[in-house]
């Protein structure tokens, strides 16, 4: 005979188990796939499908992937980056938009890079959090994300203009070195020409600086820039690549017009090409097409400056400075230089997706290589499995039939916990596995508290049914206290903790709440059914 409330309890339990199994079905399906097929599902991007059939298949795969419990970067390998957008040089209104804009641009770049399931979120005022799961080229990903990609076209100054600037710069430093007094003309070169004496003799608009002198010269250029009394319509800029001069490395220094003639925002599309430089066949470069407005502007610029050099400047460094042979009417151009193929590919992507509104810095990076991730998940799962098996064994040996009840409750607890994680699209991390292990500990404690109470009541010569009733009732208060205190501390961890601490706290909290249902509610139901039905006079506990 079952009472009405017993029937309800049984119904709810069955519903709980069914709902859990259903929610976990996709997870089970996903992780029982063959490794190759699983990779396929992980990489499925319906937006990249070429045929209708492929799209349908990929959508199905993507849905399966979404419903399965995701593994954290620490378990499957991947990269976690926290970027800070440096808005210090922007006005307050610009700064506000800059972070969102940067996020969109980075999202665009990563999308073209082809990572399945990236996470890109704005965090706080001026930070962007990026998670890239799976195998990837770390260096390439970092340079792709971190590059500002500000493309500018600037005119290289003429010989005379450059000479005039050099003379002024030399005088400036010569005076500065001697406390404002100009040196007399018999002084050695390094005092008369503090700046140009560091340059190797070369044509003036493009001077070579030995690599060991680059930091000194760069320091001087920064000093000039910082001094507002030194006004000029020209600026210095370094070549992006080093060159070799009679066995030593050097870097070219250019004198450019201060204002860019055109910016990269006028680039409509860009591709990596291998056939751009006729003198070096097979050398990677990037060809770009300008917007119609940009094309018209480019035609005007090139038309007005035939015979002069146009520098293509990326993030302040000169990629190349070709001579303008003739007016370029159709808005097409190319960037060549000493690129590796990957660098050229990156450059094409960043030019297509546009420049970041402000520079970004990587302020936190966590990378787990895929082999370590694989290692961690195997070890983590094995540890959790062995731990659970030991506990189960102990419970059954010590409490026998009642121990079995506890084990059933424990199993349902883990089932419910995993189902919740799948349902909330939570991610399973290594600290999360630790949280599950501690949930097991707490769940066992709950049952131990109850069983020890029941044993005490039995020793006090109560009947089985009465002992179960009082045992549960008395243990209940302690259990609630224990759960509330642990839950309170894990809530604090969830609110104020970051990353790994949160993952731990979330699994522990879900596990504890479910434990109140399974270890108290469901196990009591089993006990009731067992003892009342059989009218037991003794109990295996």
């Amino acid at each position, binding site marked *: 005979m079952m009472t009405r409330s017993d029937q309800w309890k049984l119904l709810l339990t069955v519903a709980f188990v069914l709902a859990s199994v259903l929610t976990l079905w996709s997870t089970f399906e996903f992780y029982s796939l063959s490794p190759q097929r699983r990779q396929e599902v992980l990489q499925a991007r319906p937006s990249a499908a070429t045929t209708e059939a492929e799209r349908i298949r990929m959508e199905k795969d993507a849905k399966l992937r979404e419903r399965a419990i995701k593994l954290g970067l620490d378990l499957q390998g991947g990269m976690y980056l926290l970027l800070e957008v440096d808005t210090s040089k922007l006005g307050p209104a610009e700064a506000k938009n800059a972070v969102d804009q940067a996020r969109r641009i980075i999202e665009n770049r990563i999308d073209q890079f082809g990572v399945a399931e990236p996470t890109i979120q704005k965090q706080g005022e001026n930070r962007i959090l990026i998670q890239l799961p799976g195998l990837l080229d770390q260096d390439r990903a970092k340079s792709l994300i971190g590059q500002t990609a500000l493309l500018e076209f600037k005119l290289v100054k003429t010989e005379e203009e450059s000479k005039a600037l050099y003379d002024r710069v030399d005088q400036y430093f010569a005076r500065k070195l001697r406390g404002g007094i100009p040196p007399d003309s018999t002084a050695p070169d390094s005092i008369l020409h503090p700046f140009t004496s560091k340059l190797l003799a070369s044509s003036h608009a493009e001077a070579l600086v030995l690599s060991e002198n680059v930091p000194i010269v760069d320091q001087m250029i920064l000093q000039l820039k910082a001094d507002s009394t030194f006004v000029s319509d020209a600026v210095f800029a370094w070549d992006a690549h080093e060159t070799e001069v009679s066995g030593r490395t050097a870097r070219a220094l250019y004198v450019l017009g201060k204002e860019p003639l055109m910016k990269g925002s006028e680039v409509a599309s860009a591709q990596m090409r291998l056939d751009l430089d006729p003198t070096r066949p097979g050398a990677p470069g990037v060809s770009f097409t300008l917007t119609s407005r940009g094309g018209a502007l480019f035609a005007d610029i090139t038309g007005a400056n035939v015979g002069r050099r146009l520098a293509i400047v990326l993030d302040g460094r000169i990629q190349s400075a070709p001579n303008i042979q003739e007016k370029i009417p159709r808005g097409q151009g190319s960037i060549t230089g000493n690129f590796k193929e990957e660098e050229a590919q990156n450059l094409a992507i960043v030019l297509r997706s546009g420049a970041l509104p402000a520079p970004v810095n990587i302020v936190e990076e966590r990378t787990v290589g895929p082999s370590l991730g694989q290692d961690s998940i195997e*070890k983590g799962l094995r540890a959790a499995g062995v731990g659970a098996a030991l506990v189960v064994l102990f419970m059954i040996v010590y409490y026998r039939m009642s121990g079995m009840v506890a084990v059933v409750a424990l199993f349902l607890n883990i089932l419910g916990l995993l189902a919740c994680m799948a349902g909330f699209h939570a991610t399973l991390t290594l*600290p999360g596995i630790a949280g599950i292990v501690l949930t*097991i500990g707490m769940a066992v404690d709950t049952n131990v508290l109850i069983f020890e109470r029941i044993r005490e009541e039995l020793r006090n010569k109560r009947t089985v049914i009465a002992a179960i009733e009082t045992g549960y009732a008395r243990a209940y208060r302690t259990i609630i206290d224990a759960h509330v205190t*642990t839950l309170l501390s894990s*809530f604090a*961890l969830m609110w*104020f903790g970051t990353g*790994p601490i949160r993952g731990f706290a979330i699994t522990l909290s879900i596990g504890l709440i479910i434990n109140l249902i399974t270890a108290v509610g469901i196990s009591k139901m089993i006990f009731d059914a067992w003892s009342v039905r059989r009218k037991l006079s003794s109990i295996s*506990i």
Partner: protein
Amino acid sequence: MLQILHGVNVNWMARRHIAFLVSGVCVLISIASLIMHGGPRYGVDFTGGSLIEIQVTPPVHVDEVRSAVDRAGLAGSEIQGLARPGQFLIRAEAKPGKASPSSAISNAVQAGDPGRKVEVLRVESVGPRVGNELRGAAIKAIFFALGFILIYVGIRYDWRYSVGAVAALFHDVFITLGALSITNKEITLTVVAALLTIAGYSINDTIVVFDRIRERSKTLRREPPEKVMNVAINETLSRTVITSFTVFLSVVSLFALGGEVIHDFSFAMLVGVVFGTYSSVYVASGLALEVQLWLERAGGGRAKK
């Protein structure tokens, strides 16, 4: 019925002073170790800096890695050869502006020999400002977690118990910190999570004992508090030991089989569980008893006047 520790009748409280001495010595050792090491050893999560683990195939000598790291402009980094040949752990200081030197290091090691394969297994790189923020967040989390627990215990139980509970809590966390310091392990975000879990367990254990003391002080009203506590501890002893044993089983398996990433976490848990079990029996109840006796003496003194 398989039973351990049933019907024990130990006069725990009579020996509480020995326990105070043992606890005192343990705490002193912890303090001494912390002083000798100049405070807890914070990991890159809190100090900022980089932790890079690489695998070089075929394996090379640690000096080779050191000179490569020097070439990468990171002289002064700490380099440690790991158990597996060719695996190295490199700890570099935080440099403002440059967050992650992982590429520089792997490129420099690679450059030593073109036939060499360098795999970056793990990078944890935290900028100095983020490190400060993480430390702030961790301190806040600890503060609030402990605060919540204390308020709850204060509401549910007498404040006399609160004192014992708090003392037991600090005792456990402190000794765990000391054990981490003695073994020269780092305090990372995950270790902080372990410390807080220890705090949670410690409170949990303490509450189970206190609950029984409260229950028994009603039924054994005429008995002296010392006796009540002994009865309560003896009655809950089997539960305390069984629970701790099962938790211990799970934590030991995490410690032995869980792999290096979770190693420090489980080590801290292991120490915490052992001392937590002991402290819930002795430190918490013992101190609660001392407070009660002190109150009675003070009360008695007034009554005599």
